């Protein structure tokens, strides 16, 4: 379907673009070898993912809701009455594609980001040794970002299958991703902390962190991955349960 290609292109393009823009504006001074400033350059170079994720979410929602809006779902379910299998197959394809493109995007963001940052003073002299993908933490951040995108896609697909309505599903997904982030800015510490740990984007950010800072997300990267995949799995399970019960 044509919109699929556009969404994937947007996913890759927007992510890299925003990484580039953010890193371009990023500067540091005053450090020296062995004494880095407190920028998390890996985190910074992956910032584009947070913009590209929207394309991934929309793609996944459309993968299922477009069938309902076109009434195609009747044809699909008449030809394939085993609905759970159909949903499972869709999930596998969508998540697989998003993982693959997400990984490529993530790597591209990292490389572009690192290259630009180094030009802006985030280098050995400034206290930031060169980081490559061979570095364990950077590798984890990059691959973890791809896994985040894949889980987000799974979550979006599940919401789409439950809502069966494009605008409604996209609204729910975007709210789930963005509302906590906005709320964290307003809430007091004790309420903001659990939101940071257990919201989609908060947990996703945790996967990308490599430097311990006062404003770090208070959950480790493994915990972050767990939260994110839990969202995806929960949405899929509910969708599988409802799809067999409702009228087409």
């Amino acid at each position, binding site marked *: 379907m044509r919109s699929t290609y556009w969404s994937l292109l947007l996913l890759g393009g927007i992510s890299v673009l925003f990484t580039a823009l953010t890193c371009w504006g990023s500067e540091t001074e005053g450090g020296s070898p062995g004494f880095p400033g407190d920028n998390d350059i890996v985190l910074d170079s992956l910032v584009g993912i947070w913009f590209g994720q929207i394309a991934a979410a929309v793609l996944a929602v459309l993968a299922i809701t477009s069938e309902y809006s076109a*009434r195609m779902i009747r044809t699909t379910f*008449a*030809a394939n*009455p085993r609905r759970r299998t159909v949903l499972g197959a869709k999930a596998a394809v969508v998540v697989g594609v998003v993982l693959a493109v997400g990984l490529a995007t993530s790597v591209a963001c990292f490389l572009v980001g690192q290259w630009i940052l180094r030009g802006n003073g985030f280098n050995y002299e400034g206290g930031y040794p060169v980081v490559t993908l061979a570095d364990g933490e950077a590798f984890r951040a990059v691959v973890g970002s791809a896994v985040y995108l894949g889980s987000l896609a799974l979550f979006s697909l599940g919401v789409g299958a439950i809502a069966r309505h494009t605008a409604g599903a996209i609204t729910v997904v975007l709210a789930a991703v963005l509302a906590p982030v906005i709320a964290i800015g307003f809430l007091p510490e004790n309420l903001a902390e659990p939101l940071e740990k257990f919201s989609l984007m908060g947990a996703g950010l945790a996967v990308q962190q490599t430097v311990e800072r006062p404003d770090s997300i208070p959950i480790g990267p493994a915990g972050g991955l767990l939260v994110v995949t839990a969202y995806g799995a929960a949405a899929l399970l509910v969708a599988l349960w409802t799809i067999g019960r409702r009228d087409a």
Partner: protein
Amino acid sequence: MSTAIDVQGLTKRYGRTVAVDDLSFRVEAGRVTGFVGPNGAGKSTTMRLVLGLDAPDAGEVLVGGKRYGDLRAPLCEVGALLDAGATHPGRRARSHLLWLARSNRLPAHRVDEVLELVGLSGAGRKRVGGFSLGMAQRLGIAGAMLGDPQLLMFDEPVNGLDPDGIRWIRVFLRSLADEGRAVLVSSHLMSELEGIADELVVIGRGRLITQTTVSALLSSRSDGRVHVRTPQVTEVMTVLAGAGGTVTSTGSDTLVVSGLDSERVATLVAERGLQLHELYRERASLEDAFIDLTRDAVEYVAEVPREPGS
């Protein structure tokens, strides 16, 4: 060889509306079964229940002795056209059929075969969104025929077709039944089914009104009025009235007689040596029979303006 479709006590409610109410009927192979009823009678809902698109609240429906959901390759047993618009508009016709074929492990050449069957061979590469209603219906029929199924279900296939298309479908449906397949065609217009349906299942407000053959329905409804056109109107009127018929004059040279069959009228007129220019017997129409049967079950009735002269 089990019954093609076996509906038993089927009931389906949407909120407080009972769309299908304890419906039971059977569809057999080798026949075209017309599924008729006024708008909103529950025809489309029943078909959706057969295909497992909706779940019944009570009762069950079996296709070839099995539930639809238990069929391994449903397209090879049941072909259905319920909604010609149920396609992705951006997809090409051939891709749409190819996807359907693959989902039921049918070979790709079937796609070309059914496209040719319905006369859409040249339109394979066009996007479905650009199809006219007639083309979309044909594409739906092509999809239904992909698996060469023994049971076919069509929901109002004649809707939106031009006379050429209507004629083609009628011949096509008839040929399917003659090949031994079971064909269920739903319609809210009896005239569409005239000449092709062998059996009728008439429903109204979700309930079965009757299941009967077309010939039985027609013969039970025969009015048998005889129309006569003659230059000697007065004489003929006298003769026929004298023989016991009720005669009404309907024009300067036409009469309508009830109570005598056409053979008797012809004999009487001939015995007196009177001239007869036209003689025919009114045939009960399926449409009148249908309206009579479903009179009480019509949900939405519009006022019929009185025709001048009726």
